[in-house]
């Protein structure tokens, strides 16, 4: 009976996946999995063939999708088959959907490896159904506080799945990750050496974080990205490892090259993407690839071939103006800081549009903007911004206040207490600057994009 139910669930899931693929291949990464799990709640367990040692999960707060995609690229370059949830469907249904697409009609896995991005909150649930033998943790940072509260909650969830059979890969320079290695007793640390874009923070209002081991203040020598860099605890001496197993060194942004110091010796590598957070994705993925015995020359080839899916920057053409949209994750200070830093690094005269809004991911919806006070906006404010435009039906004044606190001249700030696309783009059209940057929620970007497409010439630069 159980087997029949499984086969029925598999057939139904595969049928739905095929139908969705015919209608719109860009949709439906979860639906076939949801259907299969509805018909057989033990669907994932019933799949034949997964080998724990060859089941790799990638989890953490930021960088999961990029790291997973990069690992998949390296395995593909080496000719090793893997079932991968490339679309980022990282909950149980997404995992089920990926597996059913990679099994025979009899329910046997067709690939040698399973490589899954897994949501950090759902990791313990997924692990029970599909035990992973290798776990890569990108970082554990503040994110979605409405459900996560504090990073320690996520640390505990990830920690709960680590057992002596787990091969653990951790970011050496992110304290919570490094503390997982301490707890596990054994782990492979991947690391990025300080580079041209590393920085220090000297502001009076700079804060770091409590040590995950003893609660004393952590000190960073330099940051490679926000809250990630060589560190030590002022209380117990806990620190990033001096000799991590895998370390990207000799990083040259000019030549897009680096050298990986690894147990297999030094390996010269090309890298395409030069935002600093990508370096950790490269380092982690390379550690996984080499630990699984992929040939070095194929790994190097894979690094060169890697194309990131769903980048964080897109453009809207609005009249004569091009708006550069930078994506951030809601309630996630690190991704907001990355976007702010990117804009601040552009010396051109610019307009900055900030559309923080109420949060609607979970119930009850609410008006949190406090994560913006975790970010430093001073560099952005001092980076030749002609006009700040803050818009939102609920929190536009709060966003403007954050800018004022960072030193922005209130006379240079327009506050639009609305989400009306026309009003927003009409205000943009009033101001003249070579470059326009936008930070807002993804759905608002789509709304503005659609409006600008259908009303081109009537707004945003049409009069200028």
């Amino acid at each position, binding site marked *: 009976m159980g087997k029949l139910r499984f086969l029925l669930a598999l057939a139904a899931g595969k049928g739905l996946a095929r139908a969705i693929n015919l209608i719109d291949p860009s949709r439906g990464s979860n639906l076939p999995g949801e259907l299969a799990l509805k018909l057989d709640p033990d669907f994932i367990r019933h799949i034949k063939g997964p080998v724990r040692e060859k089941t790799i999960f990638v989890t953490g707060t930021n960088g999961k999708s990029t790291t997973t995609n990069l690992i998949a690229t390296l395995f593909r370059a080496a000719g090793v088959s893997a079932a991968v949830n490339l679309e980022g469907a990282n909950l149980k249904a997404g995992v089920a959907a990926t597996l059913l697409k990679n099994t025979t009609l009899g329910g046997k896995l067709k690939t040698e490896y399973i490589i899954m991005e897994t949501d950090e909150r759902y990791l313990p649930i997924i692990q029970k159904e599909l035990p992973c033998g290798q776990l890569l943790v990108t970082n554990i940072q*503040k994110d979605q*506080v*409405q*459900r*996560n*509260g*504090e*990073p*320690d*909650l996520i640390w*505990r969830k990830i920690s709960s799945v680590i057992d002596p059979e787990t091969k653990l890969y951790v970011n050496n320079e992110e304290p919570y990750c490094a503390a997982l290695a301490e707890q596990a007793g054994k782990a492979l640390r991947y690391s990025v050496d300080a580079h041209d874009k590393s920085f220090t923070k000297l502001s*009076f*209002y700079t*804060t*770091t*974080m*409590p040590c995950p081991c*003893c*609660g*004393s*203040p*952590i000190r960073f020598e330099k940051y490679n990205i926000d809250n990630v860099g060589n560190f030590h605890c002022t209380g117990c001496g806990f620190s990033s490892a001096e000799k991590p197993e895998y370390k990207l060194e000799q990083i040259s942004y000019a030549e897009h090259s680096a050298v990986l110091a690894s147990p297999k010796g030094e390996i010269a590598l090309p890298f395409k993407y030069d935002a600093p957070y990508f370096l950790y994705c490269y380092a982690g993925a390379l550690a996984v690839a080499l630990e699984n015995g992929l040939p070095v020359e194929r790994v190097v080839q894979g690094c060169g071939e890697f194309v990131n899916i769903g980048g964080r920057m897109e453009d809207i053409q609005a009249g004569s103006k091009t708006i550069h949209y930078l994506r951030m994750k809601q309630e996630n*200070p690190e991704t907001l800081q990355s976007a702010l830093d990117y804009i601040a690094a552009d010396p051109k005269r610019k307009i900055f549009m900030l559309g923080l809004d*109420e949060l609607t991911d*979970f119930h*009850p*919806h*609410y*008006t*949190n903007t*406090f*994560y*913006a*006070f*975790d970010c430093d906006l001073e560099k952005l404010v001092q980076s030749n911004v002609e006009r700040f435009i803050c818009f939102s*039906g*609920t*929190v*536009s*004044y*709060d966003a*403007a*206040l954050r800018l*004022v*606190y960072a*030193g922005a*001249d*209130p*006379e240079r*700030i327009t*506050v639009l*207490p609305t989400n009306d696309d026309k009003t927003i783009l009409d205000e943009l059209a009033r101001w003249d600057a070579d470059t326009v940057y936008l930070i807002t929620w993804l759905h608002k970007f789509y709304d503005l994009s659609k409006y600008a497409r259908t009303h081109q010439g009537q707004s945003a630069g049409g009069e200028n």
Partner: protein
Amino acid sequence: MPAPIRDSLPEVKTKMKIIVNWMYPDVLHLHGDRGNLMALKRVGGLLGQEVEIRRLESPKEALPLEDSGLLVFSAGELRCMEGLVEALAPQKEALERFVEKGGVILAIAASGAIFARHTQRKFGNSFAGLGLLDMEMEEREQVYGDDIHFTEEETGLEILGNQIQILDTHLAPGQAPFGSLLYGYGNDKTGKEGARRKNLIFTNTLGPLLVKNPRLAAELLEQAAHYLGEDVRFSLREEDIRLEDRSADLIRRFIAAKPAVS
């Protein structure tokens, strides 16, 4: 538009400088809380009152309570609270004297556990607090995040912000709350928000609280000035806090459209 932080201060109303002790900023910093310290500095500027923010890095240091009227304990991770209580315990009497003489302490979110009688944890060691507030705290199974809107009990001041509830707070009979809820979850759905003993204030409110509620920042500075022996009354000009007031109007409207917390 509000005035930016002024380079030169307007008419000085008091001779003394108010020193704000920013307690353990690298440990207690979870929800953009440094904004509260920036707000005290900014509001001081708007009032013409010199305010100095002083970082206290370690709980093992002696508390400098003689020259300071105000201590800010920001929200922090719950796992850090037991260690802070242990480190502060030898200075409990000094803290109690400070509170009894009218010194101001603002403790936000999980930092309330430092001042509570006891905190019951679900996912870690339960521990006793300093017991300066007659309340028990209890770790929740699930985090609850929402807006919060209440009036301060003593002054009737309306306060808006957010709440990320990891701990429920149960006030003992006779323990005064900080406020009465207009909307939100507050301590434990009893309609009360936070706790207050003289000027020792515990609140669940984030935002950052003092950025969104500059009149409360002014009130805390005024109480700190009283503690330091200056009989002053601080009042912000409406034109200086228009952004904050307009924000409050929008958020009041947003909250009015939400169902009550069940």
